């Protein structure tokens, strides 16, 4: 069992195995299943992410009319070759926004860690699989890395916007994706932890202020920010840069910030963007 990122790192050193195997073993122990069964359940989660991405419908709009169509616009823009972020990042942006829109439009997604932040991990992972020519098994391993990071955040801070603000949702998703990507690029446990720490540090203090209380504005586009932040954070770690503050302490800081955040900006729609004049006009 592990409670901290540092537990996972220590146990992987002691048992001469890698980060994801510690998470897999703990799941097998906890749920009383074999490691193989656990792996296949995780594979289903990854496959469900891929299906959700493939089933994006460019025509669908949310009930409020605020969400839909942005993924298609970004797709068309990427096709022109004018997106200066390049092919890899352009694709990640596109998949992130598409998944956020699919969620808002009542399509099937994988909450990872939440429905509102469901675009971050699949955007990073599906593009990494394609562009880095990785196997599905490797992607499932990376899912364990993300799950391990997310579990530690859930235990020591929060994954819910209502208790921790958006840092707990998009911030956590970004940290989970960054750690997974570092693993896929050959990073060791320390680099996984640093990637997660960088990603989360960039998201600390983020308010949860959805317009009309809906998982649409600003949630959908924040999936893009979380996914791109995961990419850059993993690259910092892979360059050998160390986080000045260890991942566990960043998570603890996130918890304290979440506690100190006023309730107006914790999913109540009583502050921030939700009370902007345009938001007030839009929601009747």
């Amino acid at each position: 069992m592990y409670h901290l990122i540092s537990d996972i790192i220590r146990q992987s050193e002691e048992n001469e195995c890698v980060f994801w195997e510690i998470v897999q073993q703990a799941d097998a122990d906890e749920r009383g299943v074999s490691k193989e069964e656990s792996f296949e359940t995780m594979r289903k989660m990854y496959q469900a992410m891929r299906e959700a991405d493939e089933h994006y419908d460019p025509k669908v709009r949310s009930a409020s009319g605020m969400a839909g169509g942005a993924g298609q616009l970004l797709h068309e823009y990427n096709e022109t070759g004018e997106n200066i972020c390049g092919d890899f990042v352009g694709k990640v942006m596109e998949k992130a926004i598409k998944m956020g829109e699919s969620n808002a439009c009542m399509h099937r997604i994988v909450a990872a860690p939440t429905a509102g932040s469901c675009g971050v991990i699949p955007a990073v992972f599906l593009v990494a699989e394609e562009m880095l020519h990785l196997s599905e098994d490797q992607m499932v391993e990376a899912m364990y890395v993300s799950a391990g990071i997310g579990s530690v955040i859930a235990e020591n801070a929060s994954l819910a916007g209502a208790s921790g603000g958006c840092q707990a949702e998009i911030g956590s998703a970004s940290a989970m994706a960054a750690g997974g990507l570092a693993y896929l690029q050959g990073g060791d446990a320390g680099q996984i932890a640093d990637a997660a720490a960088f990603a989360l540090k960039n998201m600390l203090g983020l308010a949860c202020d959805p317009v009309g209380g809906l998982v649409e504005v600003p949630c959908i586009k924040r999936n893009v920010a979380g996914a791109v932040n995961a990419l850059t954070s993993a690259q910092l770690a892979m360059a050998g840069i160390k986080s000045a503050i260890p991942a566990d302490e960043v998570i603890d800081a996130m918890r304290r910030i979440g506690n100190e955040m006023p309730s107006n900006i914790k999913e109540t729609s009583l502050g921030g963007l939700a009370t902007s004049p345009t938001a007030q006009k839009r929601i009747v």
Partner: protein
Amino acid sequence: MNIFDVVGPVMVGPSSSHTAGAVRIGYIARKLLAEQPRKVQINLYGSFLATGEGHGTKKAIVAGLLGMQTDDERIPMAFELAKQQGVDVSFGEANLKDAHPNTAQLILQGISGQTIEVVGQSVGGSRINIASIDGIETNFSGDYPTLVVHNQDGPGYVSAVSTLLTEQGINIAYMQLYRSNRGGDAVMVAECDQEVPQHVMERLKQVDGIGKVTYLGMMGDE
């Protein structure tokens, strides 16, 4: 901590609490009714009432009542499906005091005339709590096989239930007792580690002073 609550569940959006949790409330209420509903009155409260429209909360509850799970892609079509199946659905505001912000009150009538009133709360993620059955307070998650026994308040009923379960090798994980008033209506909720067979329910129903016995099984749809 189940890692598949962190990476997962697979669900129809947009909100784990207002959509997936709402599906689960409907699904569990239907299981407690133990038959296809014919007439359902859905009363919403708090945030469910205020932001439910944009989150598809109403459709989600109806979908659950029709036996759909949180990942069922037919959830957005729940109203049409209810109509096709001849289920009469109506909505209102729940008149509750100081309830959880995400609360739904479901008043159900089944095809054979069975009735039940369930109050469910969506308490975070897609987790839920069944807060009352037929007006008597309860407190269970629906994560375990759950036996709900309605009896007259008095001695011997707990022992009758526990004896029958023991005979079947069923372990009670959690047990709660509620009553409206001394000697009045009481409800016993037993969350078990194993499934409770149908014949145990039948035997319980024959016990003098036990009225209704409802059961929430974990195996598929009834």
